[in-house]
C-alpha cells in the first residue's frame, strides 16, 4: 500500500477526469466544442491506477479516448480544454483535436486514433529507452477492440522478443464501438493472449484503482528491470456511448445498471473513508477545487483566440 498523499492525489485525479468529461459533454451540447468526443467517464481507475506508477519522464501512448490519460499523466486542463474548443492556445494549437491530444513535456506523444497502431510506436519509444539505458518505461493504453488488429500483434510480439520496457494496458470495456467482445475473440480473458507472446498476462478489476495500481506496479517494475512487457487486462465499463451521440442501445439495461453500481469513484471514496484517509468534508473541498480549476479552463478556452487560418500550412515539416 502506498502513502496517504499519493492516495489522495489518485482520488483527486479520478474526480478531475470525471468532472472534466461531464463539463465537456455539456459544452459539446451547447455547441462550444466542434467535431466529436469519446468520453472517458467510468474508466478513470485505469488511467489513474496506471499513471500513478509512472515517473514524469516515463511515457504513455493513448487512443481516440485520451482526455483521461492526459489528465492522469499530469497534463494541464486549460490547454486540453482549449484544444477541444479548437483554439490557438490548445495543447496542439488546434491541429490535433480531441483524438490527438499531446503534451510531449509530460510524456504524452500525440494520442493515436487508429486502433492498435500505437503498440508498435510504444515499442519504438521503449527501444530508445533500452538502447540509451535510461530506465524509463512506456505504458501503452488500448481497448479490447485493438487486440484483433494486425499492428497490435506485431507490436506486442516485437516488444516481447526484444524484452522492451512496455506495459500493455488493455482497457477492456466490453464493447469495441458497438461490437461486444464475445463477437470478436474466443478467449475468455484478454490476458490469455499473453501466452502467445511468451509474456505474463494478468486480469484485474479495472474499476478498483488500487487493484490496477498494484497490478501495474509489478508490470512497471518488471519493465524497468529489463524483463519485458506485461499484458494487464483491466475490466471496466464506459458509462456513456462510444462517442457523442451514441445512446449505446446495444447494451442490455441490466448490464449497464450492474456496472454503474461498480462506479470506480464512489468505490474508492468509500475505501478512503474506511481507511480514515478521507472525510466527506475533505472530499467536498477537493471537488470544489476541481470544479474551480475546470471553470477556469473553460474561461481560458472561451476567451482564447481561434487560430489564424493560414497556420494550417505550418508544422507539416520540421
Amino acid at each position, binding site marked *: 500500500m502506498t502513502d496517504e498523499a499519493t492516495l489522495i492525489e489518485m482520488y483527486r485525479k479520478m474526480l478531475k477526469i470525471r468532472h472534466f468529461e461531464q463539463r465537456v459533454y455539456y459544452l459539446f451540447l451547447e455547441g462550444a466544442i466542434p467535431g466529436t468526443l469519446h468520453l472517458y467517464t467510468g474508466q478513470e481507475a485505469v488511467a489513474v491506477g496506471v499513471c500513478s506508477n509512472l515517473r514524469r519522464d516515463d511515457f504513455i501512448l493513448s487512443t481516440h479516448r485520451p482526455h483521461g490519460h492526459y489528465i492522469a499523466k499530469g497534463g494541464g486542463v486549460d490547454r486540453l480544454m482549449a484544444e477541444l474548443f479548437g483554439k490557438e492556445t*490548445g*495543447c*496542439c*494549437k*488546434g*491541429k*490535433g*483535436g480531441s483524438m*490527438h491530444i*499531446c*503534451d*510531449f513535456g509530460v510524456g504524452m*506523444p*500525440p494520442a*493515436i486514433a*487508429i486502433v492498435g*497502431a500505437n*503498440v*508498435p*510506436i*510504444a*515499442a*519504438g*519509444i*521503449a*527501444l*530508445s*529507452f533500452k*538502447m540509451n539505458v535510461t530506465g524509463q518505461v512506456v505504458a501503452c493504453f488500448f481497448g479490447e477492440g485493438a487486440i484483433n488488429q*494486425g*499492428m497490435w500483434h*506485431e*507490436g506486442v*510480439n*516485437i516488444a516481447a*522478443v526484444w524484452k522492451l520496457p512496455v506495459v500493455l494496458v488493455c482497457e477492456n470495456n466490453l464493447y469495441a464501438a458497438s461490437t461486444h467482445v464475445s463477437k470478436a475473440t474466443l478467449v475468455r480473458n484478454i490476458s490469455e493472449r499473453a501466452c502467445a507472446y511468451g509474456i505474463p498476462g494478468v486480469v484485474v478489476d479495472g474499476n478498483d484503482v488500487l487493484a490496477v495500481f498494484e497490478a501495474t506496479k509489478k508490470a512497471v517494475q518488471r519493465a524497468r528491470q529489463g524483463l519485458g512487457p506485461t499484458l494487464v487486462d483491466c475490466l471496466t465499463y464506459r458509462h456513456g456511448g462510444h462517442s457523442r451521440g451514441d445512446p449505446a442501445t446495444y447494451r442490455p439495461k441490466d448490464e449497464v445498471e450492474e456496472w454503474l453500481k461498480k462506479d470506480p469513484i464512489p468505490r474508492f471514496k468509500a475505501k478512503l473513508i474506511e481507511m480514515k484517509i478521507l472525510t466527506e468534508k475533505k472530499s467536498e473541498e477537493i471537488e470544489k477545487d476541481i470544479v474551480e480549476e475546470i471553470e477556469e479552463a473553460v474561461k481560458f478556452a472561451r476567451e482564447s483566440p481561434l487560430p489564424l487560418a493560414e497556420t494550417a500550412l*505550418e*508544422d*507539416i*515539416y*520540421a
Partner: protein
Amino acid sequence: MRQLTISEAIREALREEMLRDESVFLIGEDIGIEGGFGGPFGVTKGLAEEFGHERVRDTPISESAIMGVAIGAAMMGMRPVAEVQYGDFIFCAMDEVVNQAAKLRYMSGGQVNIPMVIRIPTGATRRGAQHAQSPEAFFVHVPGLKVVAPCTPYDVKGLLKTAIRDDNPVLFFEHKLLYGGRGYRAMGGLEVISDFPEEEYLIPFGLADVKRKGDDVTIVAKLLMVHKSLVASRNLEKEGISVEIVDPRTLVPFDKDTVIESVKKTGRLVIVEEETKTGGWGAEIAALVAEEAIDYLDAPIMRVSAFDTPIPASPPLEDYVIPDENRIVEAVKKIVK
C-alpha cells in the same frame, strides 16, 4: 578516382553516418544475421559485424512493427534507417507510414519530429506482381513525407546522408536493377558506377540534376528510366534530335524551377516513369508544367509509363509493360517534328 556501385555507396553512407552519430541505427528483415546475406540485395553486409546487433537490428517479418518501432524511436531523438525487402511490402505498413510517420508532427502542433529513413527497393525484375511495383507516387501524395529517388552512386550516397540527417520521415527509393550486382546486369540491369571523391559530401534535397544537356525536348525521368532515357537520347541524337534529361533526384521536395527552365528552353516535355500511368507521378509533373509554363509549350506533354497492369513475371510480358528505349524514342518523335 575510386569507383563505387550503388550498393557500395549506400553501405558507405550508412557506415559513415553510424560512425558520426550514435543515434543512427538500422532496422529490417535479414539485414545483420550472421551467415546471412545483408538484406535482400546485400547492401548491409558487414555492418552488423562492425556495429553490433543492437544497431543493426534484425526483426521478425513484421513491416508494421518495423515502421512503428522506427517512428517511436525517432520521436525520442534516435535516427533509425528502416527498410523493407521489396517496395511492395511497404503496403503492409501503410498505416504506420501514412497515418503515423507523416501526421504525428502536424497533429501535435509541431511538438514532435520523426527523423527516420525508410529504404525501399523499387522496380520490376522478373519476380512477378508482388515483388515489382514502383510505388513512389503513393507517397508523393502524402504531406509530411519526403521522397527521394536517385539513380547514380554519387547521388545515392550524398542524398542518403542528407536523408539520415533530415528531421522528417524520408522514403528513400533504390532501383533493384541499379544496385550494381552482375546478376542484375544479365537481366537488363545496368552496371552503374560513379567516380567518388575521398572527402565527405552531401547533396541537398530539392535540387534536380541535368543528366544530359539538349535543346529540342526535355525528358523528366527518375531511377532506371533516367538510364533508359540516356540510351534513347543517344539514338535520337543520330537522327538530329537533341534531348535534355532532367533527373529530379528528390520527388518531395521537387525542384520545379529546373524543370520549368528546361521546358522554357526546349518547348517540349516527355515524362518517363516505371510506375503505372493512371493517377501517377508523371500526371503530377504534367499538371505542374501545364499550370505554370503552358505558354512555353510547342507540343502536347507526353507520358511514357508502365501500362496499367499488375507487373507480370514472364520476360516478354514484363518487357512489354515496362517502358523501354523504343517507347521513349517514339514519344519524343511524336512531338518533335
